[in-house]
């Protein structure tokens, strides 16, 4: 009886997950074993087995996209995580007026659609005449292979930090005030309180932010599509863009699905390693 009740209560959720998560993933894997231009029905796909995966292993474009994505993710996480923790503490601890407004302003960058704001950043980054180029003595930003990916990271950090900061503030509210009081009585200053009270008790939040920022960074697409189209010289060709280009521009949906499925496997593996490392430390 209890078992049937559990099945009855779980089935709507399982149906939704099955329909919108499991079926698309299975279909992506199935397509990755075929050759398909997307102009024909699914039933007309030509079987390739693991040929698309073998091609990826030998494809310079795929390894470039993988490398660019890894660098992008690393830069995003390294900058975003400490920055959002610092900003969160700055907006939580001091008793100052206007903190709410500052939070709202920070969060607003997350609310604005990426497409709209990417166009504005394209203008800011314009070489020679763009405000940021003028301000930084003719920096090349999106116009040179050496700076284009970093420029996209700056845009990502600007857009997402506000969201992560709000999460940090939410985490800080969960730390009991009497722990700080006890630490102060024991003679701990600001830095010792941060190192021994704030950061350890904020760990669940920072782990969550770390994981979400990795996933968000791996999925970056809009600014690459709008601002750089993977250039210059493939320096911003990240995986999601390479998948889109392969499927929709080149008509190689099988190869694109192989890339997408590889990305999924990498994402699961990376998430697993990240969580395992965190669990071992705790």
């Amino acid at each position, binding site marked *: 009886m209890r078992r049937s009740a559990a099945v009855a209560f779980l089935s709507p959720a399982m149906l939704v997950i099955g329909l919108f998560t499991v079926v698309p993933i299975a279909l992506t894997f199935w397509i990755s074993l075929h050759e398909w231009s997307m102009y024909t029905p699914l039933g007309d796909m030509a079987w390739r087995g693991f040929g698309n995966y073998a091609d990826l292993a030998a494809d310079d474009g795929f390894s470039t996209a993988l490398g660019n994505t890894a660098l992008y993710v690393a830069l995003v996480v390294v900058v975003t995580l400490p920055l959002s923790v610092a900003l969160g503490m700055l907006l939580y601890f001091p008793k100052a007026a206007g903190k709410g407004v500052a939070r709202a302003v920070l969060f607003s960058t997350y609310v604005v659609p990426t497409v709209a704001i990417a166009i504005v950043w394209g203008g800011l980054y314009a070489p020679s005449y763009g405000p940021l180029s003028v301000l930084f003595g003719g920096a090349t930003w999106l*116009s040179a292979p050496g700076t284009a990916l970093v420029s996209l990271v700056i845009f990502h950090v600007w857009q997402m930090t506000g969201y992560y900061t709000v999460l940090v503030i939410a985490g800080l509210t969960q730390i009991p005030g009497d722990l700080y009081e006890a630490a102060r009585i024991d003679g701990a200053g600001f830095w010792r309180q941060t190192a021994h009270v704030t950061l350890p008790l904020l760990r669940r939040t920072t782990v969550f932010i770390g994981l979400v920022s990795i996933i968000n960074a791996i999925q970056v697409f809009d600014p690459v599509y709008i601002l*750089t189209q993977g250039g210059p010289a493939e320096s911003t060709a990240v995986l999601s863009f390479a998948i889109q280009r392969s499927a929709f521009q080149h008509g190689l949906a099988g190869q694109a699905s192989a890339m997408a499925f590889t990305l999924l496997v990498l994402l699961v593996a990376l998430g697993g390693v990240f969580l395992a490392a965190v669990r071992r430390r705790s």
Partner: protein
Amino acid sequence: MKTTQVLALGAAVMVVAAGCGGGGTDRPAATKISFLTHWGPDQVKALEAAATAFEKQNPGTTVDIRAVPFGNLLTTLRTQGASPNGPTIAGIYDLWLPELVRDGLAASMPADAAAELAASWPKNLVEGVTKQGAPRGYPNEVDLYALNYNKKLFQQAGIAQPPRTWAELEDAAAKLTGNGTQGFGVITSWPAGAVHPWLSLVTSNGGALIDGTTPKLDDPRTVAATQLYARLIAKGSTKPEMSNANANTTGPYLDNFVNGRTGMIIMANWWQSALKDAMGDRYQDVGVAPVPVGPDGTKSAPVSYSWLTVVNGKADQARQQAAWKFLTYLNGGSSGRNGSSAMGDILTSMGILPSRTGDLEAHKAELSDPFLSVYVRELPNAVPFPSVPGGEAMSQTVQKHLENVIFGKETPEAAMSAAQKEIPGVLQKAGT
């Protein structure tokens, strides 16, 4: 009770049957077709007007115009094209045609339309839209490349006339460079923008991109054009950081020319309207000349490409027939002004060269404009961009190596050699 139920059921069936029967008249069922285009609002309005006029002449057929940005056109075709309810007509880039024909999405033209096409369009364009032995659509827009230059900057640099050879191009570029201005601009982060101008220099040096399905990138005449780029960059006459384009095919490369920071650039005729909009009165500073000829070339031979309208081969027969009828009207001499087709009127309003012979004649006055007239004169010398399955991927491979040269990551020789090796695999994947 039973009798009452039977009577009630019979009455209900009669009511439903009457409702479905449309009042019992013999009016034929309406045929609804759709036209997918990447044109802007003004041109869509003109296309809608032509569709309305067609609908009046052809009661029972309705034409729905759907517009998407250029960047989304191919995506829309890939996601909706295979469906019988996808766009019935689509305006496509000729590079996409081989793949559409291979997968049965570009229907063969009916015999009467094919005869009209053969009679009213230049032979080379008819050949361009003929695949697997049958014409697949009406060519409309033709684009080709020419050297665009800033007359004011030329005057300030003491250059009397636009360069006719590569040597003159290098000399003029050096003279124009300085104070934040580059002599000769290139385009990056956009496959056609990067490849077509460079290929126009290659073809004006007697070279080619491919011969049939064999790449010709290691041909000395092709390598020479890449070496020209490398020399211009080494001398500072071309500044790579001023070259990038965005998804809308605008961006810094365009802004730099518009703002007088680029002395010369090789670009297609379609950007005339973009220059006019962005430059205002300064548009009068824009000069146009044929693409400079290389040391191994005999004449300027710019790259050209075209757009055409095709009918969805997956649509039902009634829709296909209605679509061809509409296209015949749209491209016929009675739908536009002064003997032009409505299509000719729409294209000319964008500064684009129409391809139908009668349209070129009807729009002679507009096409004699100093900007467009050079492109019109160069049309007979134009070399069509090779239209093969995998053409888009091939173009992107060349773009990648060309940009590697522009940004100093590869030498011209190494870049062309690598592209030569990669392209056969790219074409093979697409079934060429």
